[in-house]
């Protein structure tokens, strides 16, 4: 299902390319997914994000594009994997726990922004 879901490295490359498509000297910064070393992303949504980054650069005053990914649900639940590592690098036992985390919401990235065009679709739960 290569067409349905995009590889994480490809996502990074696509959004970087989108930022410099109009003006190659546009600075670019992405943050928020540092903990994910591998992932698959919904391709249709990746395409929308690419288009939106390109759209943002239509303003000639834009010198840098920042893309930040924050949890949709700011009170997120995490599984905690606790492992005891042996001298040879193996793990005999792991303990799983879950934990809630309340983190600042996307508004912290929107302070002082003049126009917010919210195109998010409703949640699917």
């Amino acid at each position: 299902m290569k067409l349905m879901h995009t590889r994480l490295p490809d996502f990074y490359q696509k959004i970087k390319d989108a930022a410099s498509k109009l003006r190659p000297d546009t600075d670019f910064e992405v943050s928020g997914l540092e903990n994910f070393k591998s992932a698959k992303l919904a391709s249709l949504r990746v395409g929308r994000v690419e288009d939106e980054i390109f759209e943002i650069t239509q303003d000639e005053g834009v010198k840098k594009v920042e893309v930040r990914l924050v949890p949709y649900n700011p009170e997120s639940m995490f599984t905690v994997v606790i492992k005891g590592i042996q001298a040879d690098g193996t793990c005999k036992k792991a303990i799983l726990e879950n934990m809630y985390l309340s983190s600042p919401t996307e508004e912290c990235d929107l302070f002082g922004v003049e126009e917010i065009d919210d195109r998010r679709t409703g949640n699917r739960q």
Partner: protein
Amino acid sequence: MKLKYRIVPKGAANGVVPLNWVFIEKQDIDAAGILPYDACLAVGKALGDDCAAVNIMDMDAITVTSDGIIANGAVVGLASVDHGMINKEFGYLNISEIPFSDKLVEEEPHMRLWLTDYYKGKKLYRGPSTQDRGARTSHNENMTMTGRIANNNVGSEAMNMVDMTEILAPFFGQYELMTGGSVMIGVAGPIVSVGIGMIVSERHGRIFGGDNLGAYRAGMTAHNSGKYAKTVKKDYPAIAAPKSVLAEYSLRALDIGLIPGQHIGCSPALLSLAKAYGKPIAFDNITERAWIELESVGITKESLKASSKVLTRDEVIAQADSIIPGMDDAVKYDVSEICEIKYLDI
């Protein structure tokens, strides 16, 4: 048109209050002809680049404390505001009225208080309905979040998620803020930390219970964390009512035969009041897990069973400061010293 609101500002009480907490009376919102959400947004914009927890209060209604005592007044909506914004799906939470039914009183024995002359016929608000919770999932608390601010447990616990400060406002403290009485502000300490966990089982409670009854009933501990329960909230500041206020409302429950540990929570405050007032305690219905937590702060079966002079109602209220343990280092303030009344143009 002016909208009246109250604010306990960051830095109040000699710097003990770590964040802004706003209280708007529902009747003032109605008089301004706007929706509660829009009132919260208007206050948010009035605060400029600042942030706040916001509680919408109906002082003609009633609510229930976590240990099962009915209080006058209720939080009927809550919000988090930051830089004039409210998060689209998690920033506001309506609290729907819970209609009276015989079934409710039968299932939740502490609600027999609703039948007394103090509260009969008043509207009840506790926790949100399933519809109120909107996009929140089963793991989400009854909390609003916008930007830096979280307003949790139906407006009784607020946090700044950037500077990571936190403050508690047990409901009777909120009642005092709204009625211009006085409040005790100080570190919650280990006894309050334990007491917060001694809850009752409800549908749509302030903290637990959705469409089904909450799993923790009177006599149990929701913290369920043994000797660590006393540490959970011990370091956080709290805005509480004077102990005489807590005593008055709690005695109303004891007066109609509600028993700590059976019908109402087994918090240190309720157990201590029952002993002083000569009322029964459901010793055998209080779980071993709850006793571990109570004993960790010096509330033991032996101390509660020891003979002592039974006080009258007036004596209990007059001596509430020495009867109810906890928040020993709190400072008493007139509400006018820590809470500002403001108006904004609508």
